[in-house]
């Protein structure tokens, strides 16, 4: 925020950064090779819905668009869920080797919001991974910062996360992804759909 914004008490809503998302497919390959975590094929976009019909209509248009793929049989229909914080998640499910298709779907959702002027409502995008022992791991993309961070939940009820694994993933993907350096921004997304 600039000096004038502080002086006048106005915040410019932060516009999301979208393009970094396309670094995900190559990072997924790298992650699989180095740690054994494979994509589950599930990914989601999380945003704060705006009240009113305008926003609901846009949201419906996007899910209709994505479901057209499902009708052709190339993908599963998208799920729309609302979490307990009031945020909306659009979950897209693909086969685990279709990382490109998944990212394209996620990008379709966020660009639809941006095109209609609702870019500042985007919170994060999440892509889910599992290893052989079925440990969950998510790569979370923060739209406002254009950075990724790993989220590895251990026990949801006790709200513990596997920090060792997260730091390890940070090291593995440092060259492929723009990893969030400020660890205080790695906020947990407990119970995220698709994880």
């Amino acid at each position: 925020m600039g000096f004038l914004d502080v002086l006048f008490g106005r915040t410019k809503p932060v516009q999301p950064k979208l393009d970094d998302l396309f670094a995900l497919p190559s990072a997924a390959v790298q992650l699989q090779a180095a740690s054994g975590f494979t994509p589950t094929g599930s990914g989601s976009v999380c945003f704060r819905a705006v009240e009113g019909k305008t926003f609901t209509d846009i949201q419906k248009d996007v899910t209709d668009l994505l479901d057209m793929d499902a009708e052709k049989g190339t993908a599963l229909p998208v799920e729309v869920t609302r979490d307990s914080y009031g945020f909306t998640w659009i979950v897209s499910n693909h086969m685990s080797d279709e990382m490109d298709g998944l990212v394209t779907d996620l990008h379709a959702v966020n660009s639809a919001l941006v095109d209609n002027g609702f870019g500042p409502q985007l919170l994060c995008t999440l892509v889910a991974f599992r290893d052989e022992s079925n440990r969950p791991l998510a790569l979370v993309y923060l739209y406002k910062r254009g950075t990724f961070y790993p989220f590895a939940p251990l026990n949801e009820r006790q709200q513990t996360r596997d920090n060792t694994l997260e730091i390890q993933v940070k090291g593995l993907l440092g060259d492929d992804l723009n990893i969030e350096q400020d660890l205080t921004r790695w906020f947990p997304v407990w119970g995220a759909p698709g994880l």
Partner: protein
Amino acid sequence: MATRTRYAPDRGLTVRMTATMFLLGLVFVAFVALIIGVMSAARVSAAGIVLVAVIFGGGMAFASLFYSDKIALATAGAREVTPQQEPRLHGIVDRLCALADMDKPRVAIAPTRMMNAFATGRNSKNSVLCVTEGIMDGRLTDEELEGVLAHELSHVAHKDVQVMTIASLLAIVAGLLVRFAFYSEIFGGGRRGGNNSQAALLIPLIMLVSAVVYAVSFLLIRTLSRYRELAADRSGALLTGQPSALASALVKVSGSMQRIPTQDLRKSEPLNAFFFTPALKPNGQGLSNIFSTHPSLEKRLAQLAKIQQQLGEITPDKH
């Protein structure tokens, strides 16, 4: 490239805020010019008092800014809470901070039944967001609570504590001058005797001018505070995209204020300027509005209704 936005700044509010700050600056410049004039006329006697008031006032303002978070928490008897203790509250703040791309403040809870919240701190790294137990007890829905927290986070983003401290500096110095001049008139008047009648006349003059400056700057600061509240409402509503939830939270919190026992209210008085809604109800409408730190409920609701309309536009303006 022009991007579409539904988040155009409110020009009217900016203009009114600029005018208030300009007037405040004008009063300050006029005051300083006058003091310099008085100092050069009176040489020693008045200069000492002015210098002490400026140093003392500046020190007080700096200390209150630097320790604002600790002072406010101690006054409210609040304790900081970890994500493990209050996962829900931290979860909401996490998400709002990620949406707004800002540093997460520390989170604290004040043990009072009153429904309220405040944010304070000298910068974004050292700020603290405090809610009362009353506001967390389920009377507000999650969306309403989120609206309240977004309003408080906007105060942090707008650096309102810094802005209001700087704005108050003038009033503090003027207030101190009145006091010093008054005491020196009582205790020091006799010693000076009649041989320096010019300086003896100047002391009451400084007192009078300082009193006027204090009164004018007090009103201007209150006006500025009301505009800052409207600005925080606005940014908070745009952040969550739910102006109606914030509006209904305002109605609920303001309504509950009338039922609060007086002892709690008196204790909370010093924190008023940082509260979500003031804990003290003005008795009458009309004139009491210009002394108020917060805009009237009607004004806040009207602004939120306007934002609701703005967010619902099918084709937003290009900016």
